[in-house]
């Protein structure tokens, strides 16, 4: 997390000028930036390791919808982006 200062020497990269000095990456405690160490639900867990939350039982789809969607679990019924439309990443910091 420390290299954030290198990219933006005078703020901690949290896009809201929370007036933090450049010396440390530690944002102001009430800074709500996604990348702020004060807003990290996985705080204290080993870094650089993927985590998959444990699936809980939930209200499942009815039989007909389950077969059509390819799953009976709504939380697993996710859109599939087989191909990314040209320009999709414009303004999202991507190159495609």
């Amino acid at each position: 997390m420390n290299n954030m200062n290198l990219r933006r020497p005078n703020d901690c990269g949290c896009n809201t000028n929370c007036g933090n000095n450049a010396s440390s990456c530690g944002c102001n405690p009430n800074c709500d930036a996604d990348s702020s160490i004060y807003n990290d639900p996985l705080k204290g867990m080993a870094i650089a390791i993927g985590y998959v939350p444990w699936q809980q039982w939930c209200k499942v789809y009815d039989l007909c919808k389950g077969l059509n969607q390819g799953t009976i679990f709504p939380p697993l019924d996710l859109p599939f982006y087989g191909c990314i439309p040209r320009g999709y990443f414009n303004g999202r910091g991507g190159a495609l």
Partner: protein
Amino acid sequence: MNQDRNKLLLYITQVSFAIDDVVLFLDTHPCDKDALSYYKELKKARRESMDEYTHKYGPLLNDNVDNSCYWEWVKDPWPWE
């Protein structure tokens, strides 16, 4: 294939798919009560619909053949027919 037969076959497909999915969940959540009761419900529904299909249209699986004096399995058209 008549309409009713198609409808029953689709139902069997749907309930079989739901069983496969709940089995995958139970593999990692063997004590989950909700999943177990849903599995029980599906198992009953699948058994009943399979029996109904076998009774009306003949065996779907080779262990559904009830007729002891004729091997009904060969009566149905082969998959390529």
